C-alpha cells in the first residue's frame, strides 16, 4: 500500500511539471473541441489529433494524449446532452435523460453532474489502476507465448460478442483486421508480404492512416448525407450548478456507476462498453420512481457517465500491464506509444517507472482539467455546435490530411487515407462495424509472433494451448463467450439491446 503512494508521488512529480500540465491542458482542450463536433467519436478524435503529439518527448506525448482522450470522451457527452447526437455507443445512454434535461432548461446541471461524476469516477479508477497495475504486471511475468496468444484470442472474441449487429460480420471484421496486420515485412525473414510493391507500406500499414480513414473520413461522409437536423437548443443555458437536491440524488448513482464501470473496464474484450448500459439499467431498476427515467432524471445521467469514465480508465490496466489493448480506443493508445518507441507491457513499469507512473498520474490530472475546462466553457461549446457543418467538414478534412502527412512526410500515405475512407464507408453501409477491425489490426502482429513461438516451443503440437492451465482457462473463457453469443435466447436479447441504440 505504501508503495502505491510513493509510486503515485513519483508519477505526480513527473507529470506535474508546468510543461506537462500545460500539455495536458491543451490536450484536454483540443480533445473536447474536436470531440464536441457532432458525429466524431473518441476514436476519430484521437486519430485526428494523434499527429500533434509526435514532436513531443514520450512522457509529454502520453500526457497530452491522456488529455485528448478524456477531452474526446467528455466532448461526446456534451454533444449527447445538448444535441441528442451521441458520437459513440457509450454516450447513447446519456442522450436518454441528459437531452431531456436540456430540453427542460437544465442542460447546465446535466453537464455539471456529468463532469463531476466523471471526475469522481476517474479519481477512484486512477487509484485502482495504481493499486492493481503492479500486481497484474508481476502476474503477467509468468505469461509465456501460449498465454499471450490465448489472452488476445479471448479479447478478440469478446470484441465480436460486444460488437453491434451481425455476429458473422463482426467475425469477418476481426479476420480482415488480422489480415491487414500481416501487411509489411515478415518478423523473422523480413520478406515483403501483401504490400503490392508500395514502398510506404513495406513496414506495415500505418496505424494512424488506417484509423483516420476508417473512422475520420468515413464519419464525415456519413454525416454529410444525413439531413442537417441539428436543431440545437435555442434556449440559453442558465444556472450551471446543480442544486443541492440534484447532488443528493446523484451521489449514490455516481458511487454505483463507479463500481460497475471499474469492474467491467478491466475485462478483456471491451467490457467498458457495457458499463453505461449496466449502470442505467440498475438505476432504473432500484429507483423508487422508475417512471421519471427517460424524462430527465438526473440519476440517469450521473450513473452512466460515472460508469463510462471509470470503465474508460480501468481499461488502461490490461494495456499497461499486459501490453494488450482491450478495445479500439486503447489500440489507438498502443499506436501512439509505439510511435514514441515504447512497447507497452509488463516491463515498462520496471524499466521506465517515471513514464509509467507519470502516465497514471496524468490520467487524474486529465480528469481534473476537464472539470476546469468544461464548466466555464460550456457556452463556447454551444456556440461551436452552431457552426454549420459545411464549414466544419473541410476543416476536419484538412487536419486529417495534414496530420497523416506529418507522420512520414509522404503524400502516398495521404492518398491511402482516401482508400481507407472509402473502405470504411463501404463497411458502414453494409452493416460491418469497423471497431473490431482496428483492434484486430493492432493485435495481429503480436498474435502471429506468439503463435509462431508457441508452436516452436511445442514442435508444432497444438496441445500446448490446452496443457498449460492458464492458457487452457483463457481459451475456455473464449469458447464460453462464443457459445453464449450463439445461444438463441441470448442472441435475441443481444439484438434487442443493440436495437435500442438506434
Amino acid at each position: 500500500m505504501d508503495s502505491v503512494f510513493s509510486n503515485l508521488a513519483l508519477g505526480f512529480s513527473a507529470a506535474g511539471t508546468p510543461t506537462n500540465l500545460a500539455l495536458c491542458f491543451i490536450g484536454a482542450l483540443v480533445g473536447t473541441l474536436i470531440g464536441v463536433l457532432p458525429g466524431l467519436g473518441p476514436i476519430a478524435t484521437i486519430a485526428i489529433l494523434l499527429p500533434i503529439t509526435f514532436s513531443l518527448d514520450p512522457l509529454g506525448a502520453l500526457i497530452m494524449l491522456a488529455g485528448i482522450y478524456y477531452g474526446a470522451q467528455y466532448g461526446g457527452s456534451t454533444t449527447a446532452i445538448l444535441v441528442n447526437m451521441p458520437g459513440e455507443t457509450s454516450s447513447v445512454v446519456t442522450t436518454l435523460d441528459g437531452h431531456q434535461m436540456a430540453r427542460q432548461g437544465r442542460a447546465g446541471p446535466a453537464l455539471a453532474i456529468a463532469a463531476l461524476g466523471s471526475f469522481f469516477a476517474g479519481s477512484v479508477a486512477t487509484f485502482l489502476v495504481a493499486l492493481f497495475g503492479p500486481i497484474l504486471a508481476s502476474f503477467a511475468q509468468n505469461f509465456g507465448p501460449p498465454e499471450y496468444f490465448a489472452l488476445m484470442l479471448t479479447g478478440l472474441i469478446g470484441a465480436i460478442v460486444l460488437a453491434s449487429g451481425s455476429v458473422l460480420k463482426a467475425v469477418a471484421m476481426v479476420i480482415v483486421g488480422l489480415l491487414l496486420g500481416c501487411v509489411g515485412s515478415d518478423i523473422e525473414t523480413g520478406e515483403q508480404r501483401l504490400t503490392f510493391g508500395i514502398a510506404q507500406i513495406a513496414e506495415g500499414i500505418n496505424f494512424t492512416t488506417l484509423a483516420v480513414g476508417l473512422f475520420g473520413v468515413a464519419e464525415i461522409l456519413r454525416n454529410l448525407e444525413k439531413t442537417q437536423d441539428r436543431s440545437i437548443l435555442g434556449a440559453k443555458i442558465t444556472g450551471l450548478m446543480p442544486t443541492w437536491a440534484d447532488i443528493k440524488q446523484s451521489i449514490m448513482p455516481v458511487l454505483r456507476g463507479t463500481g460497475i464501470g471499474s469492474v467491467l473496464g478491466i475485462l478483456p474484450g471491451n467490457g467498458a462498453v457495457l458499463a453505461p448500459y449496466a449502470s442505467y439499467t440498475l438505476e432504473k431498476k432500484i429507483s423508487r420512481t422508475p417512471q421519471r427515467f427517460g424524462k430527465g432524471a438526473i440519476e440517469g445521467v450521473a450513473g452512466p457517465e460515472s460508469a463510462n469514465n471509470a470503465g474508460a480508465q480501468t481499461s488502461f490496466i490490461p494495456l499497461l500491464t499486459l501490453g494488450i489493448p482491450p478495445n479500439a480506443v486503447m489500440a489507438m493508445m498502443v499506436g501512439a506509444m509505439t510511435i514514441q518507441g515504447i512497447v507497452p507491457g509488463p516491463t515498462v513499469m520496471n524499466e521506465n517507472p517515471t513514464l509509467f507512473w507519470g502516465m497514471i498520474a496524468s490520467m487524474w490530472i486529465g480528469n481534473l482539467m476537464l472539470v476546469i475546462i468544461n464548466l466555464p466553457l460550456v457556452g463556447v461549446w454551444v456556440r461551436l455546435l452552431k457552426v454549420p457543418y459545411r464549414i466544419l467538414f473541410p476543416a476536419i478534412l484538412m487536419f486529417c490530411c495534414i496530420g497523416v502527412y506529418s507522420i512520414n512526410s509522404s503524400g502516398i500515405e495521404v492518398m491511402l487515407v482516401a482508400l481507407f475512407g472509402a473502405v470504411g464507408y463501404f463497411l458502414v453501409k453494409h452493416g460491418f462495424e469497423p471497431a473490431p477491425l482496428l483492434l484486430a489490426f493492432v493485435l495481429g502482429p503480436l498474435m502471429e509472433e506468439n503463435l509462431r513461438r508457441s508452436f516452436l516451443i511445442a514442435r508444432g503440437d497444438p496441445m500446448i494451448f490446452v496443457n498449460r492451465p492458464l492458457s487452457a482457462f483463457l481459451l475456455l473463457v473464449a469458447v464460453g463467450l462464443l457459445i453464449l453469443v450463439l445461444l438463441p435466447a441470448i442472441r435475441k436479447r443481444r439484438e434487442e439491446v443493440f436495437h435500442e441504440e438506434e
Partner: protein
Amino acid sequence: MRVRSPQDLVGGIALIALAALAFSQIGDLRIGTASRMGPGYFPTVLAGLTGLVGLVLAVRSLVLDGHGLESLNLRHGLPLLGAILVFGLTIRPLGLVLASALLFLVSAFASPELKWRETLVASVVLIGLAVLLFVVLLDLPFPVWPRM
C-alpha cells in the same frame, strides 16, 4: 432463387474478392510447417478464413432475410475523397498553403449548400491556423510554399 439480403450478398462478395486479392499477393511466400511457420503461413490461413466467411455470408443472404442495399452517396463521396487525393498529390510540389487551398476547393463540391464567399473566408482563416499550429508552433518539417 431470390436474394433475401442484398446487403449481405454484396458484403460476402467483397470479402471473397479481398481473399482472392490477398492470395494473389501471397504468391510464393514460404508457408512452412506448424512447428516452423514461414512468412506465408499466417496470411494464407487468414485469407482462407476471409474467403470462407465471405462465402457463408453470401450463401446465407440467399436463405435469411436481411437488409436491402443503401444507396452510396457519390454526390458527397467523390469530391471528399477527391479532395484527399489532390492534397496527397500536391503537398510535395506545391506546399502546405496551395495544397490545402486545393483541398478546400475540391471539397466545396461536397458541401450540402455551397456559398463561395463563406468558403473563401473560412479557408483563408483555416490555412492560416494550420500554418501557425503545425509549422510555427509544432515545428513540423512541412514545405509551406512551392519549391522553386
